[in-house]
């Protein structure tokens, strides 16, 4: 057995180490804030930051073309403005986005541009950003449930919804082939995306009066947001729902129109209706996906809403440039209430696109232009 002397030596050794550790404590300094940067305490009134600073961009899952565009455009535009950037997509969900934002803060990002997956689950990370003096720009979707958001850049979601509603009515008049009442079905986006609710409510502002006075009928009876929402904006989920609705309600009746929240879902619904052997009714959309533009040019999908990602990216980069120069940010033109604070917002204008104006709207777009002209 270990003799007493050796055991005493072992204990002494450890006591010594502990003592040294405690002695060292007097020499340490605890930093005032994280991230190793000389961060200013208040956001918005900071002295700015220099060229070459890191701008962190945290985006949600890549579910459509406009996010692919954002992945390409952000590094391009930020580099042109003289900054370095890191763009991260959180494919696995909220937990991954939370770690990505924390990592960007640790890396010393000077500004965070966040397109949230679930805008109400980032409070902790944004509080860390606030403590480190990093301004946060909410991109495309509003971040809620936290006061630590500084700016919002988005295409007016309410206007998008109204454009969709109006175009559905327009399409019904043009294409239904018979007078009112018209049979329509409603689809909405993901319930955890704040925008999805606003799109739907905007559309219902236009459509609800028509439902109330009998011009529009919803045979499936599903008219509340909860009933029509599509978790995760997943096209398969929407397609399954349309399959069930068609089987249950449309064996004899005709479907005259569909409100679809975006192009990806619109295409899946077109597939579903086509598989059921029915003619494709006027269908709305959003995002200007190239494949949907082809369908619009061919007269299959009725409309989409153009929200050029490049405009949204440019608007965000403009805010970054003003923050870098230490100036007060004045590109915003409105305010949004996220429940905990009022966020200065740069509202951008969406454009409704149908077959008639497609060629003109996308005249300058290298990808969509040729498709709209019928050469895609």
């Amino acid at each position, binding site marked *: *057995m*270990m*003799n007493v002397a*050796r*055991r005493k030596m*072992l*204990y002494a050794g*450890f006591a010594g*180490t*502990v003592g040294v*550790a*405690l002695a060292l*404590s*007097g*020499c*340490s*300094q*605890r*930093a*005032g*804030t*994280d*991230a*190793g940067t000389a961060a200013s305490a208040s956001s918005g009134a900071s002295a700015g930051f220099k060229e070459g600073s890191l701008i962190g961009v945290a985006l949600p899952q890549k579910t459509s073309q406009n996010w692919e565009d954002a992945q390409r455009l952000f590094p391009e535009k930020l580099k042109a403005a003289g900054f370095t950037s*890191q763009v*991260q*997509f*959180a*494919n*696995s*969900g*909220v*937990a*991954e986005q*939370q*770690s*990505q934002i*924390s*990592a960007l803060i*640790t*890396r*010393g990002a000077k500004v965070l541009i966040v397109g949230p*997956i*679930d805008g*109400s*689950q*980032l*409070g*902790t990370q944004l*509080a860390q950003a606030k*403590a480190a003096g990093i301004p946060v720009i909410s991109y495309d979707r509003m971040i809620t*449930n*936290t006061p630590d958001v500084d700016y919002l850049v988005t295409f007016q979601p309410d206007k998008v919804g109204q454009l969709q509603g109006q175009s559905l009515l327009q399409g019904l008049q043009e294409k239904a082939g018979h007078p009112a009442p018209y049979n329509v079905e409603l689809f909405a986006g993901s*319930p*955890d995306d704040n925008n999805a609710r606003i799109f739907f409510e905007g559309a219902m502002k236009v459509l609800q009066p028509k439902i109330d006075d009998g011009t529009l009928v919803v045979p499936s009876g599903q008219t509340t947001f*909860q009933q029509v*929402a599509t*978790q*995760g904006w997943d096209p398969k989920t929407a397609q399954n729902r349309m399959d069930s609705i068609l089987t249950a309600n449309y064996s004899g009746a005709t479907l005259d129109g569909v409100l679809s929240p975006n192009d990806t879902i619109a295409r899946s619904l077109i597939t579903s209706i086509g598989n059921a052997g029915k003619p494709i009714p006027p269908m709305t959309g959003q995002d200007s996906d190239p494949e949907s533009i082809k369908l619009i040019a061919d007269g299959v999908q009725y409309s989409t809403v153009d929200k050029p990602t490049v405009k949204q990216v440019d608007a965000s980069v403009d805010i970054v440039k003003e923050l870098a120069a230490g100036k007060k940010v004045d590109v915003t033109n409105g305010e949004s209430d996220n429940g905990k604070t009022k966020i200065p917002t740069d509202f951008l204008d969406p454009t409704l696109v149908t077959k008639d104006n497609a060629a003109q709207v996308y005249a300058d777009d290298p990808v969509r232009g040729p498709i709209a002209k019928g050469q895609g």
Partner: protein
Amino acid sequence: MSTTSKVAPATTPAPASRARQVGELLSRNLRQFGMVIALILLLLFFQIKTGVALNPGNIINIIQGNAYVLILAVGMVLVIIAGHIDLSVGSVAAFVGVVVALLIQDWNVPVYLAMLLGLVVGAIVGAWQGFWVAVVGIPAFIVTLAGMLLFRGLNQVFGKSTTIPVPQEIIYFGTASLPEVGPNTGFNNLTVLLGLLGLVALVVLELRKRRNALRLGAPVGPTYALVTRLVLLGAAILVATYLFASAPIGRSFPIAGIILLVLVVLYAFIAARTPLGRHIYAVGGNRAAAVLTGVNVRRVNFFVMTNMGVLAAVAAIVFIGRSTSSGPADGTGWELDAIAAVFIGGAAVSGGIGTVVASVIGGLVIAVLNNGLQLIGVQADITQVIKGLVLLLAVALDVYNKRQGKPSIIALLQRGFQRSSTTPEHEQPRSATKV
């Protein structure tokens, strides 16, 4: 040395040279500490590559951001040791999260009572699944697969697919750190105390184990192996304490980490030092033999499934605390993260092998890998590819070692702390096939 002359050197054959002894000792200890060494190397690599990986704030973020997976891994390892698997933990956690959030928001239940009820709900869910596994005898894979769908659905029904914010008391569990008390020493005093406690516990446990082993005449390694092990682990604890304690004011060792530590100590104790723990290993290792020796297999199965439900509830509370709200997509994929952590930590697919501490270390390896790749700026899709490969290689290495007759890399990680129940099993192969 006085030690080796008194005890028969059961670890090496008699005429081996000194150099070979040392070599074998080093290689065996290297294998035992394989995962810990991998963890340290990863941290050093990312620190060199990014310069900020070892920032106290970053380490705290790693713990807070992955606490929920590590808590799940603590429960999952017991399930896997018993020879089962639980695919429903993510959905159960999401379900408990939404229940707790709703109780507070819609029913005005006091916060701490709501959390307690959440744990109760987790226990009920676990017991429900335990009933089907233990009493009816359906394979756990199927029961928990059904549970995954069932409780995800219930989560959507109750929560109506919306996010529900949670109050500050719950956010505390996910985001707060040990408070600042006592004189200003330049560190967080409570964290320093915790670290010293850990250090003292390490030394006391190691020495006591050695004294017991010598008293019983069991084989022990040479003293310098003990000293080296103590020095290395002690240094690791000191470095970790330093990192946590020197974080900026307001942050230190996170509360989520305290919860994790308490659970690890508790379950490691249960697994290694109680009859229940030994029965879990027995049922997983050789079910027929366990039945014949009078182990109540039904009770063991019921316990591990119920326990998993409770731990899923704990993980849920920590996660919704950190996320400040409960969301409809919570819990997606959590079971796979927990299972990956357990297998990287060295558990066997067929059951009977694995330890709680090793699973947590396995989970930390994945967490550090994730964090480091994010710091570098690697895209999320490539990160996923790397994680998949790491999981495959880690388990392949472990299987290779086992096939060679050497002990599982991590199964014996804690031989220094506590006895793993599978020690007898592993003594034989080691002396039988020497490579």
